[in-house]
C-alpha cells in the first residue's frame, strides 16, 4: 500500500499543545513481550568482494542464512565500516538470478541458449577445448582477463596451460593505467589499487576529478570525511557537480579534457612565485632546473583560456596549497582513462606534488607497508609440459607488438597487460591468431569502449570461457559458463595487503553454496585434472590453498588471525585532530612522535629516514630521461581535447554512483532501491537547443548506433555545457538479470576506444553523441 508521506520540512505543530505532559508512563508495560538482545547463531570472518577494496568483515548467520554483514572493527582498513554495496552483499548471495550450474552453449553466440551440464561434463568440455586450441595453434593463443580475489587461481591455470603474455588485468588499462604510469615515471612507484593518499591528515586537498564520495572505497572516504572534520580546505575540479563537489569548499567546473592545463598553471605559479618546498626539491628531485624554463608558457591566464577557470582563482589556489606544504595533496583521478593525454596529466600532478614535498609526509602520500605471509605450497608452474612448449615457441607478446610504448611501460604492461589492446588483437587476429579467451569476474562488453567491437572479437575465438556469479551479457556469448560461489560461500587464499596500516585477513564460508557453484580454485583444479595437469593443483579447492598458507604461519600469528579475522601491526597511532583549539604544528609533532614508536612507518621522510626512489636517477624524476630516450616528452605538455565536428553533439562522460560497483551490482535489490536506472545529464542550454525538457525520455545516437532503452533526461547545470553525463554500468541486455534487464543506456557502447601513447591505457571520453527524444 502506498502511504502519503508528509513533506519532511513542512512545519507540523502536533507536539506543541502537549508541552505540559512530561511524563513517561507506560500503563501497558505488562502486556508487552520482553525484548530479546540481538544474537546471531554464528559469526564468520570474511572480506567484502562487492568491490575490490576488500573491506574486512564479519558475517552474522541465523538458521543457516546470512542475515547481516558488518565491518570488522579490528581491521585498520575499514574500522568496522562497510558501504552500501558491502552491506547489500546478502542480496547478491541470495539473488535468484544467479548462475546455478555450469552451462554449455547450444545456440548462436549472443543468443544465450545453454544446456545445463554436470561439473564433470563441464570440466571435460573445457579441457577438450583447451587441448584443441593448444594442439592446433599453440599455447600462446590462449588469453585471459581477470578481476577479483580469485585472480591467482585462474592465472595459475593460465600459466599451466602454457599461456604466456596475453593476459590482462583490466584495472590497469581500463582504469588506473595512465595515473600509475605517470607516477611510476616520476616517483618510481605506481599508486596501485589501495592508494597511498593520507587524506585524514591533510590540510589542503585538491581533487582532480577524483570523486571520493561516489567512486567510493570505505577507508579512503572515511579519511576524506576526517579531513572535513579537521576543516581541511577542499578544492574539487570536475566538469560535473558531484556529491564530492558538495563536500568541497570550492568547486571548479572545468572544461572536460583540460585538467592538465589547470595543473601546469598551478606549477607555473608555484615556480614563478617561488612557492616550492626548496629543501625537499633539492634533496629528492632531479630536473627542476629544466622544469623552470619549460613551465613559463603555462601561465594562469593561458590556463583560463583552456579550462574556463579564472586565472586569479588558479593563482590563489597555488598560493594556498603551498602554504600548507607538506601537509597537503593534489589527488589524481583514479580512473584516468579519459582523453589519451592522461599520462601527461598524471605526470603534471606527480610533479606538482613533488614541488610541495609531500611524499611520505602526513597529509600527502604515505608509505605503504606489508606483512609477509607464506604462500601455499604448490609445484612450479614452469614444469608443466605446456609451459615448456610455450617457452620453446617463444611467441611475441601480442599486445606489445601492436603498440609502441616506452620501455618502462612495456615492463609494466608485461605484468598487468593491456585489456583494450588484447581484445583488438583478438578482433584483428594480429599479430597472430588468439583462439581462446577466459573472462574471470569481468565483463568485456561493459569495460571496453566502442564495445560492440568486442562481440565481433568473440566471434573470432574458438573457445570463450566465462567464470562469473550472474548471467551478465558476456555470458550470452560464452561457450562455457562456470558459476562461481560468492565470497560468502567459500574460502579464498590468505590476503595480505600493502597499505598505510598493513594487515592480513581471510575469508571462510558463512553458509554452504546456495546453488551448485564452486570456488575458482576448485574450478581450475577440475579443468587441470581433466587435462592431465592435476599435479599442479594439489588442493581440490580454495580451502586447501588457504590452510596450506595458514599452517605455515607462526602459531601466535595464526591464532590471532583465526580469533579476530584480521591481524595488523599495532598499536596504531591516532590521526591528527585539529577540531579543538590546537596548534597544528603541535598536533602533527604528536602524531609523528607516536609513529617513532610504532612497528611500521608510513612517513619515513618526515621522520628523517634516508629514502631513495626506484627511478633511473634514484631521485624523483621531474625531468624524465627514459621518456626522452624513447622519444616521449620528458616534461609534461598540454594537448587540447578533441572537438565535436557537428552541431548539437555532446561529449559523453561517465562515472560511478555511490551504490554500485562497475557493471556488476545492477541486479542487487537493495542497491536498486537507491539507483535503478541511469539518466542523461544535460546542461539547460544544450537541452534547450535540442528541445529536450527535464524528464523527457531520450536515447543516445552515434552514427548507426542508437541506444535501445530510453532513459530520462536530467536537465541540470551541474553538468557543463557541451557535455552529457551518464552513470556507468547500465544498458543491460541480458534477459537473465531480470532486475536490471533493459534498464539504462550503456556508456561502453558509445564511448571512445582511444588510447594513451605513454601508458597504452584506454581513453574513453573522446566520443561525441547526439541526444534524441525517444
Amino acid at each position, binding site marked *: 500500500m502506498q502511504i502519503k508521506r508528509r513533506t519532511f520540512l513542512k512545519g507540523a505543530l502536533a507536539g506543541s499543545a502537549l508541552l505540559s505532559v512530561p511524563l*513517561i508512563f507506560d500503563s501497558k508495560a505488562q502486556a508487552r513481550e520482553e525484548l530479546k538482545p540481538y544474537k546471531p547463531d554464528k559469526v564468520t570472518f570474511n572480506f567484502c568482494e562487492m568491490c575490490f577494496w576488500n573491506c574486512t568483515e564479519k558475517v552474522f548467520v541465523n538458521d543457516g542464512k546470512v542475515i547481516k554483514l558488518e565491518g570488522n572493527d579490528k581491521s585498520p582498513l575499514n574500522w568496522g565500516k562497510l558501504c552500501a554495496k558491502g552491506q547489500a552483499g546478502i542480496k547478491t548471495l541470495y539473488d535468484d538470478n544467479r548462475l546455478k550450474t555450469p552451462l554449455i552453449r547450444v545456440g548462436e553466440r549472443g543468443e544465450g541458449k545453454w544446456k545445463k551440464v554436470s561439473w564433470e561434463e563441464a570440466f571435460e568440455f573445457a579441457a577438450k577445448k583447451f587441448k584443441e586450441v593448444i594442439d592446433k595453434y599453440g599455447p600462446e593463443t590462449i588469453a585471459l582477463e581477470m578481476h577479483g580475489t580469485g585472480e591467482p587461481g585462474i592465472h595459475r591455470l593460465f600459466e599451466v596451460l602454457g599461456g604466456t603474455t596475453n593476459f590482462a588485468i583490466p584495472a590497469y588499462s581500463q582504469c588506473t593505467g595512465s595515473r600509475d604510469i605517470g607516477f611510476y615515471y616520476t616517483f618510481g612507484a605506481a599508486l596501485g589499487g589501495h592508494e597511498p593518499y593520507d587524506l585524514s591528515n591533510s590540510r589542503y586537498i585538491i581533487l582532480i576529478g577524483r570523486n571520493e564520495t561516489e567512486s567510493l572505497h570505505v577507508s579512503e572516504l572515511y579519511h576524506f*570525511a576526517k579531513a572535513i572534520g579537521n576543516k581541511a580546505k577542499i578544492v574539487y575540479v570536475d566538469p560535473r*557537480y558531484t556529491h564530492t563537489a558538495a563536500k568541497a569548499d570550492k568547486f571548479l567546473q572545468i572544461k572536460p579534457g583540460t585538467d592538465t592545463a589547470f595543473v601546469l598553471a598551478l606549477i607555473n605559479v608555484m615556480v614563478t612565485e617561488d612557492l616550492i618546498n626548496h629543501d625537499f626539491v633539492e634533496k629528492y628531485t632531479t630536473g627542476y632546473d629544466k622544469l623552470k624554463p619549460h613551465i613559463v608558457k603555462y601561465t594562469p591566464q593561458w590556463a583560463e583560456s583552456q579550462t574556463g577557470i579564472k586565472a586569479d582563482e588558479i593563482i590563489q589556489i597555488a598560493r594556498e596549497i603551498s602554504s600548507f606544504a607538506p601537509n597537503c595533496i593534489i589527488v589524481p583521478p583514479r580512473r584516468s582513462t579519459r582523453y589519451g593525454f592522461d599520462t601527461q596529466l598524471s605526470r603534471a600532478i606527480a610533479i606538482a606534488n613533488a614541488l610541495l614535498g609531500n611524499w611520505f609526509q602526513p597529509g600527502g602520500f604515505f608509505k605503504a607497508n606489508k606483512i609477509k605471509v607464506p604462500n601455499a605450497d604448490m609445484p612450479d608452474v614452469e614444469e608443466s609440459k605446456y609451459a615448456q612448449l610455450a617457452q620453446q615457441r617463444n611467441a611475441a607478446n601480442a599486445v606489445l607488438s601492436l603498440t609502441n610504448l616506452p620501455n618502462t611501460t612495456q615492463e609494466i604492461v608485461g605484468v598487468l597487460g593491456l585489456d583494450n589492446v588484447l581484445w583488438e588483437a583478438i578482433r584483428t587476429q594480429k599479430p597472430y591468431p588468439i583462439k581462446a579467451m577466459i573472462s574471470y569476474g569481468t565483463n568485456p562488453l561493459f569495460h571496453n569502449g566502442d564495445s560492440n567491437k568486442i562481440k565481433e572479437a568473440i566471434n573470432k575465438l574458438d573457445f570463450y570461457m566465462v567464470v562469473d556469479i550472474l548471467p551478465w551479457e558476456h555470458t550470452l556469448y560464452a561457450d562455457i559458463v562456470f558459476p562461481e560461489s560468492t565470497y560468502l560461500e567459500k574460502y579464498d587464499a590468505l590476503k595480505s595487503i600493502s597499505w598505510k596500516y598493513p594487515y592480513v585477513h581471510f575469508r571462510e564460508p558463512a553458509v554452504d553454496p546456495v546453488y551448485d557453484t564452486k570456488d575458482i580454485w576448485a574450478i581450475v583444479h577440475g579443468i587441470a585434472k581433466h587435462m592431465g595437469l592435476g599435479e599442479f593443483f594439489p588442493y581440490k579447492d580454495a580451502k586447501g590453498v588457504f590452510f596450506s598458507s595458514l599452517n605455515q604461519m607462526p602459531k601466535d600469528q595464526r591464532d590471532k588471525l583465526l580469533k579476530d579475522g584480521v591481524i595488523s601491526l599495532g598499536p596504531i597511532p591516532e590521526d591528527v585532530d585539529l577540531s579543538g583549539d590546537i596548534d597544528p604544528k603541535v598536533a602533527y609533532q604528536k602524531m609523528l612522535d607516536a609513529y617513532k614508536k610504532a612497528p611500521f612507518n608510513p612517513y619515513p621522510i618526515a621522520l628523517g629516514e634516508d629514502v631513495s626512489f626506484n627511478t633511473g636517477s634514484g631521485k624523483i624524476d621531474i625531468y624524465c630521461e627514459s621518456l626522452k630516450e624513447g622519444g616521449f616528452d620528458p616534461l609534461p605538455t598540454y594537448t587540447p581535447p578533441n572537438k565535436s565536428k557537428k552541431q548539437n553533439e555532446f561529449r559523453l562522460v561517465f562515472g560511478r554512483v555511490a551504490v554500485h560497483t562497475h557493471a556488476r551490482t545492477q541486479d542487487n*535489490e537493495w542497491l536498486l532501491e537507491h539507483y535503478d536506472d541511469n539518466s542523461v545529464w544535460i546542461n539547460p542550454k544544450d537541452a534547450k537547443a535540442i528541445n529536450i525538457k527535464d524528464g523527457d525520455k531520450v536515447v543516445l545516437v552515434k552514427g548507426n548506433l542508437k541506444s535501445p532503452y530510453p532513459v530520462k533526461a536530467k536537465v541540470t547545470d551541474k553538468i557543463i555545457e557541451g557535455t552529457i553525463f551518464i552513470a556507468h554500468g547500465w544498458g543491460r541486455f541480458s534477459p537473465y538479470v531480470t532486475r536490471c534487464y533493459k534498464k539504462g543506456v550503456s556508456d561502453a557502447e558509445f564511448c571512445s576506444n582511444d588510447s594513451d601513447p605513454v601508458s597504452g591505457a584506454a581513453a574513453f571520453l573522446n566520443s561525441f553523441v547526439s541526444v534524441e527524444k525517444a
Partner: protein
Amino acid sequence: MFERPKKEKNYAMVIVQDRCVDCKACEVACKAMWEVPDGKLNYRTKVLDIEKIENGIRKMTFMPILCNQCDNPPCVWVCPTGASYKRKSDGIVLVTPNMCIGCKACMEACPYDARYYNEELGAVDKCTFCLPRLESGLEPACVQTCVGGSRNFGDLNDPNSIVSKLLKEATNYWVLKPEDGTFPNDFYISNSAKTE
C-alpha cells in the same frame, strides 16, 4: 514549561552533518538489520539531499534523519492502543507490534516522517536506536557502518561518552523542528574530526 524527563540512560545520536557523504551505507545496514521490507518508502532511517543556490553558489547538504526518540513524543500521545510507548529507563520510543492496529495516527503525528507501515509485520515500525543490539553490546547498525563517521551514539548521562564530548566541544548544535516542542534526542553539529 516542558522539562526533559530524567532517565537512567539518556541515549542520543549526535550527527556531524558536514561529515555525511551520502553513501547510504546506513540505510542499507538498517534495512538488513531489521528486515525492513524492500521498497523506497519503507525505512527507519534515511539521508536527505537538500539543495539550494545561495548567492549564485550551489549548496548541497546531506542530512541523515531517523527517529528522534522525542522526550515529548506526539506519536506516543496519539496512539489509541498504547502500542507506541516511551521507555522509562532510556527514553527509547518503541512500538509493540501485536498491539498496533495499523491506524497510522502516529505516522501523521510524527513531524519527522520517522515511521512507516510494515506490511509484513502488520504494524507500524520505526527506529529503535537498535535497542536489541545495544543490549548485546553492539552499536546501532547505522552508527557502526557510517562511512563518513557522521553518526555518533552514546549516553548523554555519561560525560565521557562520545556524544557528550561532541556536544560539549561543539560551538553550535541544533535539533530538527524545535518549534514543534518534541524535544528530540538526535542532535546535529556541523564539524568535528572526532569519532569512535
